[in-house]
């Protein structure tokens, strides 16, 4: 019988040194130095990585942990991975037999989704770091997205268990005391459709971890163990204070945010869910215990990503734009219930874990808006609108593949119209220019333009969504993962909703099929993939939008005459 009692997750509060002994200057210098060590690690990874997913899409996380698995520093990469690696480190170490079974030169590979929070393609390399006398001083770890790890398809929206999603490495030593474990390495290569890329990216993760370890050790040695430890505690306390000072400004209370998934990938039923944000003084509880049961399709979000989604939401609001560490997470506790969509148990499918996770970030803002509407923006398109393509080139018979997230309109806030960019969970990622796509893929992009009337109306309007038309010049398979096609992005404070996302294939004969979530769908030559990304929600009563702003939007063509007359009659 599975215990379904809700579980509370907290950040590390253990102490390794004495913050009171730390001087404030050394604390600031140590903080800089640890962030720089994480940045050096990231640069080494990006420099040596083979696949664009790493060096262009930045689909990775790079972080340094102390022996208590508390986050010391994380380099800017995919925000969705913020504060997620401690779970990988904990589980990876536990699974190889604990710290007593770890030795200098060991490197562990780990990708069990319920421990990483991700799909199996996101594989973590964990590297224990030792001082010369053999004392374990912490870990460097990198979780990176591998192009392929031998699931049923290169990218899936219809898996029914984790075994269809990819090969599992449940915590295995790829390096033992500095020696490559060749048996494991050959298995890695055998279990990928693109072994060369996987080999290259694994190597980049190893190099990154080593560079990080050297820089990290250098920091500890520069200050000496004791001064370093004291400074780390003072750094954590400081981060905690920063975040708490923000939440003290939000009135105490229990606020409910509502979200809804379009479907679970297998059936078309909508999946409404709620996250409760409870604020008491400067303590914040994010309660996911009342969400739906584990789904039969891959939209389950394992606990580590439920927690990192919470951490992203909080850090973006209360972290003052700084790189996060464990202290920033201390004011936050996350509650989940085993056996639910946000706390799935093995072997529940979770290939699309990221979709509920990224929506949860905005659902948390939806809840906070009920306390302080001006503290957060209205909803964005609410999705990364991913499309993955592959096929065999007609002329050469060579296989090809590509894939990308796409920007949507962003929500307006009190004081600003929304822009158009990728979802906040992928805020540093860039998508490819059309000319780069066309130079390598059998495509012609017919259109990439802001969509008129897609922006939610308001005193401040949402950012417009985008219409993409990709014309295939050869037969192509696609997998699409586009959520929030059934609901408008919400407005706030009286603002209206934006246009929802949509994805369709238009065949040469004019027939059009909607494909928000599809796996291995054949798009024949001359058919067009039409992706219409959502517009951001508006903020504030549209009647309060100044006439000049409406006229400017009309002149620019963001909105049409009829849209303007309907939502902004004051301008006429």
């Amino acid at each position: 019988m599975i215990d379904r009692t809700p579980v509370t997750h907290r950040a590390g509060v253990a102490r390794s040194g004495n913050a009171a002994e730390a001087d404030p200057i050394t604390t600031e210098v140590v903080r800089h130095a640890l962030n720089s060590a994480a940045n050096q690690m990231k640069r080494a990874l990006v420099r040596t990585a083979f696949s664009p997913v790493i060096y262009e899409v930045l689909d990775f996380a790079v972080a340094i942990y102390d022996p208590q698995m508390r986050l010391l520093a994380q380099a800017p990469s995919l925000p969705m991975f913020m504060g997620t690696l401690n779970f990988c480190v904990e589980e990876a170490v536990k699974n190889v037999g604990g710290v007593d079974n770890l030795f200098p030169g060991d490197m562990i590979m780990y990708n069990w989704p319920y421990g990483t929070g991700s799909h199996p393609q996101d594989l973590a390399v964990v590297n224990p770091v030792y001082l010369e006398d053999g004392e374990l001083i912490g870990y460097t770890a990198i979780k990176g997205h591998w192009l392929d790890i031998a699931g049923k398809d290169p990218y899936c929206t219809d898996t029914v268990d984790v075994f269809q999603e990819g090969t599992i490495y449940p915590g295995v030593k790829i390096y033992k005391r500095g020696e490559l474990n060749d048996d494991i390495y050959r298995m890695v290569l055998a279990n990928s459709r693109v072994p060369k890329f996987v080999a290259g990216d694994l190597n980049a993760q190893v190099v990154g971890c080593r560079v990080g370890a050297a820089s990290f050790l250098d920091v500890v040695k520069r200050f000496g163990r004791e001064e370093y430890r004291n400074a780390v505690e003072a750094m954590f306390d400081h981060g905690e204070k920063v975040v708490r000072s923000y939440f003290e400004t939000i009135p105490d209370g229990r606020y409910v945010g509502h979200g809804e998934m379009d479907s679970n990938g297998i059936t078309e039923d909508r999946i409404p869910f709620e996250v409760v944000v409870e604020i008491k003084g400067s303590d914040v509880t994010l309660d996911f215990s009342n969400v739906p049961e584990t789904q039969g399709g891959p939209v389950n979000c394992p606990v580590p990503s439920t927690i990192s989604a919470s951490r992203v939401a909080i850090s973006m609001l209360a972290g003052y734009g700084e790189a996060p560490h464990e202290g920033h997470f201390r004011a936050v506790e996350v509650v989940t219930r085993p056996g639910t969509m946000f706390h799935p148990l093995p072997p529940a499918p979770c290939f699309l874990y990221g979709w509920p996770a990224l929506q949860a970030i905005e659902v948390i803002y939806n809840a906070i808006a009920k306390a302080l509407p001006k503290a957060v923006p209205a909803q964005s398109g609410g999705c990364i609108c991913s499309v993955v393509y592959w096929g065999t080139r007609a002329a050469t018979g060579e296989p090809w593949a590509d894939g990308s997230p796409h920007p949507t309109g962003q929500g307006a806030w009190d004081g600003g119209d929304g822009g158009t960019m990728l979802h906040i969970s992928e805020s540093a990622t860039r998508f490819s220019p059309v000319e780069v796509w066309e130079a390598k893929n059998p495509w012609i992009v017919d259109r990439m333009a802001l969509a008129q009337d897609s922006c939610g109306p308001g005193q401040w309007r949402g950012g417009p969504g985008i219409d993409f038309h990709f014309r295939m010049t050869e037969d192509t398979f696609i997998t699409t993962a586009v959520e929030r096609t059934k609901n408008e992005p919400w407005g706030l404070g009286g603002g209206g909703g934006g246009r929802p996302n949509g994805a369709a294939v238009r065949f040469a004969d004019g027939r059009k099929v909607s494909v928000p979530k599809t796996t291995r769908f054949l798009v024949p030559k001359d058919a067009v993939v039409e992706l219409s990304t959502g517009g951001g929600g508006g903020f504030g009563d549209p009647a309060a939008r100044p006439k000049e702003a409406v006229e400017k939007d009309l002149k620019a063509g963001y909105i049409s005459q009829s849209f303007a007359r309907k939502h902004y009659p004051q301008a006429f």
Partner: protein
Amino acid sequence: MATRIGVDIGGTFTDLVYYDDETGETVEGKVPTVPHAPEEGVVAAVSGHVPRAVIEKAEFFLHGTTVGLNALLERRGAKVGLITTEGFRDVLEIRRGDRAEMYNLFWKQPEPLVARHLRLEVGERVRADGTVFRPLDEASVAPALKALMDERVDTIAICLINAYANPAHELRVEALLREGGFTGGISLSHKISGEYREYERTSTTVIDAFVRARMSNYLKRLDARLRELGFKGTSLITRSGSGSMTFTEAEERPFETIMSGPVAGAQGASEVAKMLGIEALITADVGGTSFDAALILNGEPQVLYEGTIDNMPIQTPWVDVRSIGSGGGSIAHIDVGGLMRVGPRSAGAAPGPACYGKGGTEPAMTDAAAFLGMLGPGRLASGITLDFAKAEAAIAPVAAAIGQEVEATATGILRIAASSMANAMREVSVEQGLDPRRMVLLPFGGAGPLMATLLADELKMTQIVVPPLAGNFSAWGLLGADMVQSAARTRIMDLGEEAVASANALLAALFADIAGRGEHGARETVLSARLDLRYKGQEHWLSVEVPLSGEAIAATAEEIAESFEAEYRRAFGGVMSEAIEIVSVRATLRAPLPRRGQSTRPAAEEGAEEETIPAYSFERKTRLPFRVVPRATIAAPLKGPAIITESTTTLYLDAEWTAATGAHGELVLTRSEA
């Protein structure tokens, strides 16, 4: 050799250095920058510091300026119209989807340089291989032109999709605009950049159109003023990718100068590295508001081919100089969590640090240095007398907030600033797979020599070279800027003999294009070429120099592949077994300036009385007596602790360090073995 004058405009000061070929002397000067009329500052510097006879015989005037950059940053430029392919009017606004501040929920992309109603479409489409998918709908050009003329745009940028592969439609649209009566400037994307990536190419083209008129007016005014002063030589301006170009050419291709601000320093550093045979050198240019670091490997700065200004990409070669917001003016403050931070806000030129006595009350890094005695007894060469009491008064509130003495707080401000600078240098080095400990530090800029031993100690570096004229080093670097012209074109093709032949055809066209811009006259020129190469399927590429015979590549495809793999291994630590493809072809023409003499050794001052002041030693963590020594008097090696003064900067030499004057007037600082 040739007499030449270099003037570099900074945010606070306009620096001048001239070299007189007759006497072999290099002379420096400094005047305040005139923000609203920068050419007036230049004229003041030249007329105030250069004898008329030298102006008249000078063959070159070399100029570094941020006029174009400022026009862009302050959005003071032309009203630009943009004509693009149907379906793509929003390329500038959609960008690449990323956020400049990744943890900022409220970040929004800046307004594009061209508003949406001025971005118009024409019917046409070229494919990536240059074939025409949809012929130009000529009838669609007239309404676009009319709309732009009704809006009275000053200039029009034409940026069509895949125009890098086939410019026919861009050229035809240009002709139609002229036929339609448009007389303003027209910027064609394939001429401005020639590289693929429509957002980046459009951004570059629009930047060019935006700054062109302003830049051209400035250069014309300045040139006229120089002629009035008696100058008869060639006026040159620095390029972002190093080297210089004539004013006339810069009026045509202003975007090539936009990122040239910190280039002169890096260029000077390469010259020093070559002169002294230094293999790996890292610069530390510390000014009032920013810190710039650049790697110089084997005497060459690192050049990148795409840069960013104010979140706008620009496809032009630029010297890889990394900046962080940390400098002499950086202000120490207390954050919401109660920790002390330093910068990025700066006291700037006005009010400046508190100790300058010009009304500043917040504690800047310079105040901390002054309080600690690191700037000597207080008489700065620029005529300012330091007010130590004001420095202390500014630091005191911050000290109280963190519960420390003023002395400890002041050392803290310097430690925090030094650590962020050192971190930036570590990161630049790691990116190239290098360890800073094995490099030489080259500090310059007003506050570089102040920070030199602190930075070296942070990075465990044991060798520092303080160049001559360290406080005016960027202007000195200008004097060595050869004339350079370059052009590039993207054409993706599998590397093989056929591709080499196509690359040669492209090179011939690019060199012809460059020659058409020319004005290097009878000067001897050196041609060079690079191929951007990558493994098929990869996005990132490496630019590899290829040998030339005349204007053609003198290497087989196999040899090119070998040099690519060697470079790839150096950069990324391994090679792949994938096929290699050419992405772009780059052509460069260099017309070297005549060599100049290197006698920059300052004359020794007679009978200067030596003083000693109690200053803080970071090595010993306490105040020690520091000797105050004018740089020019250092004959025998000088052991620290000492404060070494010169006319435009102050060098802080901590204990454990020894300074010796080298053969070219440089000071070599070495750390004693621990």
